[in-house]
C-alpha cells in the first residue's frame, strides 16, 4: 500500500501541524474493545493530553473507532455512521476481530476484513489491545497526519465502486442518502 505523497502546499503543512493535535473520537463500542477506552481516558493514561476526546455524533468526529467484531447487521450501521462523518476522517480498527475476524473467524455472521468495506487508517493488534498500545497507535496516527500520509479517507472517495461492490456483496442493496461520488466532485477531493 504505497502512500501517494501529495505535494503539499506550505499552508497544508501548517494546517496539518495544528490539526494533528485535535482528534475527536467516535467509538463504535462493539465486542469487548470498549472497556479498554475508559482507562486510556482517565487519570492513569490520560488520552486528553494529545487533544483526543470522545465525541458523540459522527458530524463532530474525526476518528471512527471500531472496537471489536462487526456482524453484517452492525456493519450496515457503521457504514452509515462513517458516511455521515466529515472528511478528513479516519477509521481505527481495534483488536484482531477487525483485522482478520479474530476468534469469530469461522462465524457465518461476522465480517472478516474491515478494510474491504471501509478504508481503515490504523489497525491496533491485540485481542483487546491495552491502553499503552492504544495511545501508541494514536501517536502513530498523529505522526502520519503530520507528514500528510493519513489519506485513507481520500481512498473512499476515489475508488468508491470497489467499496460499494464489497458492501453490497455482504449486505445487499441499501441507501445511505449520502452521494459520495457527487461529494467527491463538489468538495474537489478527487
Amino acid at each position, binding site marked *: 500500500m504505497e502512500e501517494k505523497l501529495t505535494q503539499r502546499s506550505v499552508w497544508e503543512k501548517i494546517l496539518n501541524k495544528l490539526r494533528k493535535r485535535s482528534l475527536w473520537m467516535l467509538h463504535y463500542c462493539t465486542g469487548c474493545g470498549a472497556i479498554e477506552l475508559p482507562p486510556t481516558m482517565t487519570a492513569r493514561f490520560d488520552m486528553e493530553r494529545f487533544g483526543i476526546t470522545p465525541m458523540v455524533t459522527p458530524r463532530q468526529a474525526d476518528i471512527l473507532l471500531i472496537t471489536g467484531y462487526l456482524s453484517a447487521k452492525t456493519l450496515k450501521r457503521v457504514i452509515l*455512521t462513517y458516511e455521515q462523518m466529515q472528511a478528513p476522517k479516519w477509521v481505527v480498527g481495534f483488536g484482531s476481530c477487525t483485522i482478520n475476524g479474530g476468534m469469530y473467524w469461522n462465524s457465518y455472521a461476522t465480517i472478516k476484513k474491515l478494510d474491504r468495506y471501509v478504508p481503515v487508517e490504523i489497525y491496533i493488534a491485540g485481542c483487546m489491545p491495552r491502553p499503552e498500545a492504544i495511545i501508541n497507535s494514536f501517536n502513530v496516527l498523529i505522526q502520519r497526519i503530520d507528514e500528510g500520509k493519513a489519506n485513507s479517507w481520500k481512498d473512499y472517495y476515489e475508488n468508491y465502486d470497489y467499496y460499494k461492490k464489497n458492501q453490497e456483496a455482504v449486505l445487499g442493496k441499501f441507501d445511505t*442518502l449520502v452521494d459520495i461520488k457527487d461529494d467527491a466532485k463538489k468538495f474537489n477531493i478527487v
Partner: protein
Amino acid sequence: MYLKTILLLPAITFLISLLFYKTESVKKYLNLIVYGILFYYGIILYKQIGTNFGYNLNFSSLSVNFNVTYLGYFFTLMITGLTFLTVLFYLKFMKDENAPRDFYIWLAIKTFGMLGVVFASDLFTFFLMWEVMSWSTYFVMRKGENTQESSFKYLIYAVSSGMLLLVGLTITYNTFGTFDFAQIHNALSGASVSLLFLLAVIFIGSFAIESAVFPLHSWLPDSYSNTFSPITSYLTGISTRIGVFAIIIFLFNIIGMENINKLVIFKGISLMYILGLISAITIIIPTFTALEQYDAKKLVTWHGIGQGGYMILGLASGTALGIAGGIFHIVNHLTYVSLILFSVAAVEYRTGTTNLNKLGGLIKKMPIEFLGLLIGIIALAGIPPMNGFVSKWMIYKTLILTGHPILAIAAVIGTLGTILSVYKLIHNIFLGQLPPEYNNIKEAPFILQIPIIVLMIVVYVLGVYPGIALSLIAKIQSALNLPAVNYTLHGVSKEVGELNMNVINLVFLGGIIVAYLIYLLGNKRRHVSQYNNYAAGHFLTEKTKYNFNYKFYAALDHVISPWKKRIIERTEKAIISFTENFGEYFRRIYTGNLNTYTMYILTAFVISIIILKELL
C-alpha cells in the same frame, strides 16, 4: 370634513353587503375597495385633528357628538389599517362556498362602533357606540364551527361590562348633570374622594372586562381562536385594545393626572398601584398557560391577554416614559400579533390545521410565512431589533427607576414565559421533520402574503425608528396634559437614559457581516435532506416519525402544575351551576295544572287589597 366621511363609509359597506348578500365574489371586492378608501381617509384625518361634529337626536334632549383628538387619530389609524389588511386576507382565505354570508355586515357595524367609541366626545355617545361595538363583536365572533358556546360566554361578559358602564353613566349624570368629558373633569376636581373612588372602580371595572384583565380574561382565548383565522387576527389585534383606549380616556381625560394621586386607599397603596399589580398578574398567568397550548391560535390569543397586561402596567406607572411605553405597546402589539396570526392563518390555508402536534418542518415549503412568523415572534418576545423591545424597555425602565420592584420582576417573568412559548410556536410549525403528508405543499398565494410582508416591514421600521410613533404619542400625552416623553428618532433621549435602536441595529448587522466572513473561511457546504440525520445508526425513512413536538416543555410542566389551581374556571363553573339550580327551583312554580294558577291569582288579589287598604 373627513370625520363625517369616516363614519359614513362603514354604513356604505353595510349597504353593499346587504345588496350583494348572495353573490359572495362581488361583495368581497367592493368591500375591499371601500375599506381601502376608509384607510386612506384614516391617514389623511391628521390634517383635521380637533374638528368636532355633533348631531342631536330629535326624540330626546340628548345629542351624539364626536371630535377628533390625537389619541382618536392614533386608534383610527390602527383600526382602519388592520381592518383593511384583514379584509384583504379574508378575500383569498375564505373559499366562496363556505364563506359566511353575513360576515361583512357585522364587520361594517363593528368598525362603525369602534370608530364611534374612538371619536366619542361625551359619555352618552361613548356608551352608545360601546354597545354597538360589543354586540357586533359577538356576531363577528359567531362565524365558524363550534363557536356557539365560546362566543356566548363573551356575550355574557360584554353585556355585564355594558351594564356596569350604564351604572357609571347614570351616577355621573345625576351627580354632575352632564356627559361631556371636559365638564366632568372640571366638576370631578371638587368631588369627594369616595365618589371619585366609586366612579374609578366602576368604569375601570367595566373596561377591564373588555380588555381581558386578569380575573375577567377567561372568555378571550376560546372565543377568539374558534373563529376563522383572519377574524382571530383582527380581534386579537384591535378588538381588546379598545378597552385600553377607554382606560386611557377615563384615567387621563376624565379623572386627569392631578387627582389620580388623590385616589390613595391607605398609606402607600394607591389605586394605580393596585392596577399595576393586577396587570402584573395578567402578564404572568396567561403567558405560562400559553406554554402548554397545543393549538397555535390559542397560544397566541393567550399572549394577547399577557401583552394587554403590559399596556395597562405602562399606563399605571404614571410617569411620562411609562405611559408612552404603554401606548406605544398598543400599536406594537397590534402589528406583531396580527403578523403572527396572519402567518399561522396562511399555514392553515395550506395545511388545513393549526394543531402544533401535527405540523413541522414547513420552513422548506413556506419560507415567507416562516420569515413573517420569525419577525413576529422576535417582536413578541421583545428582542432588540424589533419594535416589541422598545415599548417593553420603556416600561421596565420606569418600573425600576420609580421603585416598583415587584412589578418589574413580574414583567421579567412574563417575558421569560413569552420567549419559551414563542419558540415552541415557531419550532412546532416550521422547524423539525416535515411530515410526509405535507411534502407537496406550495407557498401561500400572493394575496395572503401581502399583509404578512407589509406588517413585517412595519414591525422592523417601528423597531429601528420608534421616533415615528413616539412623536405622535408625545402629542397625545401633551393633549391629555400629561408630561410628554422626550424621544429621538431612534429611541429615548439622553436625559432619561439613552436608548438608540439604530446603533443596536447597525452593530448587529456589522456582527453578522463579520460572522459571514468567518463563515466563508471554511470550505463549501452541502445541504442535506432531513432524513440524512444522526439517529444512532438508524436508517431514517418517511415512515419513521423522528420529531419532538408533543409536550415540548414537559419538565417545566412538572414544576408549574402544582400551582395551576384553575381558579377562574372553577369560579365560573360554580356561578353557572348556581344559576342553573336557582332557575330549576324557580321553574317548579309553573306546575301546569289549572287550580294552582287560580290559587295564585286569588292570593295576589288578597295581598293587593291589604296593601291598598294600608295606603288609603
